[in-house]
């Protein structure tokens, strides 16, 4: 560790203002503050400072994502070997999945960070590692067979249009990772829907697939009306089903949720209210029960598709979510309701979580505004009452 510090200190004078390589100052800053907690402090005004800064918070989220990612890698291998009808050991399954998933992660990080660094250099501000989490989230919400160049294009779109035009990390209205997925969803719909994209190797017509293996996700089956084929709750809870890389295992996601809640980085209000909102909507559907889709019980419905993943990792994005406590509850509740509404009632979109979160991202500032206004009004009223009394 001493060696790292020494190298950094050696380079530092060159990239300072007036140094030889001052153009690369933001790049250097990015690496230095990533490796070590920066030593600069706020200079004016009173401030309360936590020991943890943005980069450290991001790392915790990435750690929380690990269980889902590792399970996703194993599941990619498992589904692939299931599809071609061979058996393989645990290590072989995992290794196969690892080799399939790793390129997507690398592309997402290299492209995304590349764009961020270029913008930071041009605009002369420091590189914010807001992309650390987005870069990990993007691969996890893609089908494993997504072509790499599409991941690259979607990442560029998400970082530039989703983040840089609004002023960079912390200024974005929408969740960049979801924007990348939405981009692929609308630009290349054949690569992110249907039965053949979710299992590695299935979209290649030369792959021999075992009879009876469809590769359809639970969402796909429900969309086609094959409700009897939807796996039971425990299968979906454990997660050895086809789906986007990170979304299948509910156990792994819940472990991630526990890490986020215990470390205080993810808002449990948003997670809980999202699930509550989803359940409320399902109960309403159950009451009407106009078609088989509406009759699915809440537990099964909640464990289908990317609902839980979205609720834990996407909706809780501190930048694009509501900031006030009451606002968070309203925000989460509406995400849950809208996601279920789109999922069940709109046949064009098999899963509604992505669109629900993006839509509520848009309304989050509005919710905050009214929560704050209501608070001001309430306190004004109290102030008036007490002044009358005295």
């Amino acid at each position: 560790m001493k060696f790292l510090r020494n190298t950094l200190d050696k380079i530092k004078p060159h990239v300072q203002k007036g140094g030889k390589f001052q153009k690369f100052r933001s790049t250097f800053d990015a690496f230095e503050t990533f490796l070590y907690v920066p030593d600069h402090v706020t200079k004016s005004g009173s401030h309360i400072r936590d020991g943890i800064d943005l980069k450290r918070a991001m790392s915790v989220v990435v750690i929380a994502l690990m269980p889902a990612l590792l399970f996703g890698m194993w599941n990619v291998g498992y589904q692939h070997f299931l599809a071609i009808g061979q058996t393989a050991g645990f290590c072989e399954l995992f290794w196969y999945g690892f080799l399939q998933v790793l390129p997507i992660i690398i592309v997402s990080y290299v492209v995304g960070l590349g764009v961020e660094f270029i913008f930071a250099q041009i605009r002369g501000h420091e590189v914010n590692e807001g992309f650390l989490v987005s870069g990990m989230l993007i691969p996890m919400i893609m089908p494993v067979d997504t072509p790499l160049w599409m991941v690259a294009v979607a990442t560029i779109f998400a970082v530039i249009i989703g983040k840089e035009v609004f002023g960079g990390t912390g200024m974005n209205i929408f969740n960049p990772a979801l924007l990348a997925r939405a981009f692929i969803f609308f630009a290349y719909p054949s690569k992110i829907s249907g039965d053949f994209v979710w299992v590695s190797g299935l979209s290649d017509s030369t792959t021999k697939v075992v009879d009876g293996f469809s590769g359809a996700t639970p969402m796909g089956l429900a969309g086609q009306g094959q409700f009897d084929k939807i796996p039971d709750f425990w299968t979906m809870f454990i997660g050895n089903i086809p789906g986007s890389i990170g979304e299948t295992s509910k156990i792994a996601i819940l472990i991630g949720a526990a890490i986020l809640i215990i470390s205080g980085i993810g808002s449990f209000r948003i997670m809980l209210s999202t699930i509550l909102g989803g359940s409320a909507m399902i109960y309403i559907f159950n009451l009407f029960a106009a078609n088989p889709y509406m009759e699915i019980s809440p537990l099964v419905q909640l464990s289908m598709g990317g609902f839980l993943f979205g609720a834990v990792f996407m909706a809780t994005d501190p930048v694009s979510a509501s900031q006030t406590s009451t606002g968070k509850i309203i925000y989460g509740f509406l995400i849950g309701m809208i996601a279920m509404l789109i999922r069940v009632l709109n046949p064009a979109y098999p899963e509604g979580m992505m669109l629900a979160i993006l839509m509520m991202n848009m309304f989050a500032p509005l919710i905050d505004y009214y929560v704050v206004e209501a608070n001001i009004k309430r306190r004004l009223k109290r102030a008036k009452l007490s002044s009358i009394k005295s």
Partner: protein
Amino acid sequence: MAQVKNSKLLANPLNLQNPVTVQVLGICSALAVTVQMKPAFVMGLSVTIVTAFSSLIISALRNTIPNRIRIIVQLVVVAALVIIVDQLLKAFLYDVSKQLSVFVGLIITNCILMGRLEAFAMGNKPFPSFIDGIGNGLGYSIILLSIAFVRELLGSGSIWGFKIIPPVFYQLGYENNGLMILPPMAVILIGIIIWIQRSWKKELIEK
């Protein structure tokens, strides 16, 4: 009103006074007709003609139009010209006219037209007004064509209806971008054009 050179009247709307990217007028037709270049070109041409001639006519009439009913008079002139253009398109360019459908008729409500008539033609001599109309029409067309170029190239892999992306690309896994066909991408493209223009001409950036 200060006299402006005729050449300035023609050149300003192309860049510094562009009706779409600077004054943000006529956005809705820019979203609707820019999926392909051909309709976009015809639309731009139609708007240019209508803007130029309505400016000419209104400017010639400007001293006789009673102030209180000037909007109605302007609308009558514009509507007459739009109908002529529409009929001409139907007669000679039926396919494109069908693609443009209602949007030719909607030129009447295009904000660029009323804006130029109110802001320029009502207070200037016929010839400068005519030039001003052409300039603004061209400024509108340029933006329309550049958006349509990107959208057609990336959305359908063609330019002016000709496939220009070689089939080899598709075999290698390239796919047309479906988002380009949808209107939201046109908004984003206009945004990007505005962004580029403002980083190029710094004086356009609002404080």
